[in-house]
């Protein structure tokens, strides 16, 4: 989860990383009671980068100018995102601008400290000059000093910059972050340092163990869910495509393999769902059976999907137990549709199961009454070929 600048700065203030006086603006009229002295800079609070270039950052010197600029920024989408709030902040004269970050690195399997004496707008052209220190063992301030020295800093700046890095690291660990960035860290002519902009990414898995962050996440989720209609997929590991073949598989790797096989066979995948809830934080335990039913429901409701390809392998539940869940789902669906069922959308099911009880599972499913009896196969390549063939023939019939 990415924080907005004003949220990141609230954390900076709490841990005593120096920031400028600022005020959150929910509405242009809030500027009438602005406590930060002019001139101020108004900044759009959106998650995307490139705010300045897009016109989301404006310097203003009077209340009238500020209100006009604020109205403008509130109505300016940046990469499709409209700000809910602005941040009004004092102006700061910098002599130099540094880049500082703490990031979790999967290769080193450690947090890594990053820094460059050429931050702010210079960063992009000096990307390869970023210095790096891996925090191999338990953190101690010397890691921060090593980074400061590698950045080429001298004298008092070594201490003042490494003090900031030390606080950044503390925040990084305390809040379970993936990334914490200060860019730029403004350095005044007198050598004072100031965090002018910040980026914070909280690790999604850790959110639930921080009540304060969980509350922020819930608030954010309720806002996005109002805007987006695909809320049903929000707690699924999924890929959204717009073809004809919906895919359900248990496990990330198996889902990707199925997606690859369908695509290579000339099929067009639609929504692909991973049935294994490898990311069940905060959702409580949902049984595999319930999840399978939910997945079938989601794909069946998608009018664009003509074939649902299930690919399930494993020992709990067994192939026969899976077959039972699918049979119940189909019987329930057919009976609740009653006589109108012909008019309703019923994608064909290709079910790939494997295991000792495959034959029993197959029998359970192909003996079902009703229309659109599922096709049950044990060989994965054959199941994929069948799914692609069916999707093509259904499309051809409708043309």
């Amino acid at each position, binding site marked *: 989860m990415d924080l907005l600048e004003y949220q990141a700065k609230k954390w900076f203030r709490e841990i005593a990383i120096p920031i400028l006086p600022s005020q959150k603006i929910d509405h242009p009229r809030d500027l009438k009671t602005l406590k930060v002295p002019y001139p101020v800079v108004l900044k759009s609070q959106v998650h995307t980068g490139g705010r300045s270039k897009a016109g989301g950052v404006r310097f203003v010197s009077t209340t009238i100018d500020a209100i006009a600029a604020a109205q403008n920024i509130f109505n300016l989408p940046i990469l499709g995102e409209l700000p809910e709030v602005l941040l009004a902040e004092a102006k700061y004269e910098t002599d130099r601008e540094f880049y500082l970050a703490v*990031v*979790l*690195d*999967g*290769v080193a*399997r*450690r*947090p*890594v400290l*990053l820094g460059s004496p050429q931050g702010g707008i210079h960063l992009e052209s000096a*990307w390869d000059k*970023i210095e*790096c220190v891996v925090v*191999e*063992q*338990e953190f101690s301030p010397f890691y921060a000093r090593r980074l400061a020295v590698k950045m080429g800093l001298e004298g008092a700046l070594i201490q003042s910059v490494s003090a900031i890095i030390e606080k950044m690291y503390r925040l990084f*660990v305390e809040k*379970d972050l*993936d*990334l914490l960035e200060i860019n730029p860290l403004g350095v005044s002519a007198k050598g004072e340092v100031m965090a002018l902009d910040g980026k914070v*990414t909280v*690790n*999604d*898995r*850790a959110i*639930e*163990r921080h009540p304060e962050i969980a509350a922020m996440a819930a608030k954010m989720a309720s806002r996005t869910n109002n805007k987006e209609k695909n809320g049903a997929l929000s707690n699924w*590991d999924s*890929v959204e495509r717009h073809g004809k073949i919906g895919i359900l598989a*248990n*496990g*990330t*790797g*198996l889902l*990707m*393999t199925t*997606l*690859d*096989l369908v*695509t*290579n066979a000339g099929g067009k*995948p639609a929504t692909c769902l*991973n049935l*294994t*809830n*490898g*990311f*069940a*934080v905060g959702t409580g*335990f949902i*049984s595999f059976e319930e999840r399978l039913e939910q997945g079938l429901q989601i794909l069946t409701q998608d009018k664009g999907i003509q074939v649902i390809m299930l690919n399930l*392998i*494993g*020992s*709990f539940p067994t192939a026969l137990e899976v077959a039972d869940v699918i049979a119940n789902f189909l019987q329930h669906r057919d009976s609740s549709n009653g006589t109108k069922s012909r008019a309703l959308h019923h994608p064909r099911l290709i079910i790939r199961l*494997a*295991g*000792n009880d495959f034959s029993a599972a197959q029998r359970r499913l192909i003996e079902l009454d009703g229309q659109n009896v599922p096709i049950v196969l044990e060989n*994965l*390549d054959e199941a994929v070929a069948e799914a692609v063939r069916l999707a093509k023939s259904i499309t051809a019939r409708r043309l």
Partner: protein
Amino acid sequence: MKLTPESKVLIQGFEQPLVSNYAQQMKAYGTNVVAGVSSGSGGKKDRDIPIFDLVEQAVTAVGAIDTTIIFTPSYEVLDAALEAIAFGIRQIIIVSTGVPPLDLVQLVRKAEACDTLVLGPNSPGIIIPGKILLGTYPQEYHLPGSIGIVSRSSTLTYEIARELTVSGLGQSICVSIGNDGITGSSLLQWLQILDEDENTDAIVLVGEPGGSSEETAARYIAEAIDKPVVAYIAGIHAPVGKNWGHTGALAAFIGRGMDFGTVQSKLDAFKAAKIPVAERPSEIPELINQALTKK
């Protein structure tokens, strides 16, 4: 690595859903499951497996333990692993999912310091067909033999084992390191183990998008491994940069290039290392047979 049917195995988080089933499946396969740990259930028994409140009590009752398999909820995994290390267990398999990466950083530091092997999280464990099962592998897809599988996936590994079995190629050892952003052990470590394993004649390496462990593995294979290796990478048509509910956010940063973690980068690395890559799981047995006859 101590992986014999005699080695003593503990199960932590015994109260979690399905764990009792997995424990009995392991026992039935011949694994020496000596105890379970579940805080609050001490003194009970799950059929013939005694349950303890603490790892310490289990060790006192059954003697030194070789391997623990952790099923606890994600936020309790670090604590469970540290408890196991504190009482002398040096092989840890983490089946649990959703472990926060900073917990793993802490665990990896500790494990390195006391020479402990950590597999996972989000791993189905290890199976040596016909001999021992440590984790959640379904036994029915396996056949004893001489092909080793080292993988980042779980169910996809079952699929590949099944393809090999159907073609009459048995397996010496199948292991999945899990596909979290930070893993307790790497593909490379397990390649070394399989390379040294005298029962293994050829190796199948199964990768996924994200991170750079396949690239590192490819370079290592070219330099140090004489046994034939066949690779398979899932996700060539999956969206680039998607983090799949894992910790992909820690992927690309500075100096690693835009290509970091992509399937293409991995395929390029295998090509450079002259490692044959299967286009689909069913092609793997054929490539293994070719590689074995060439040798």
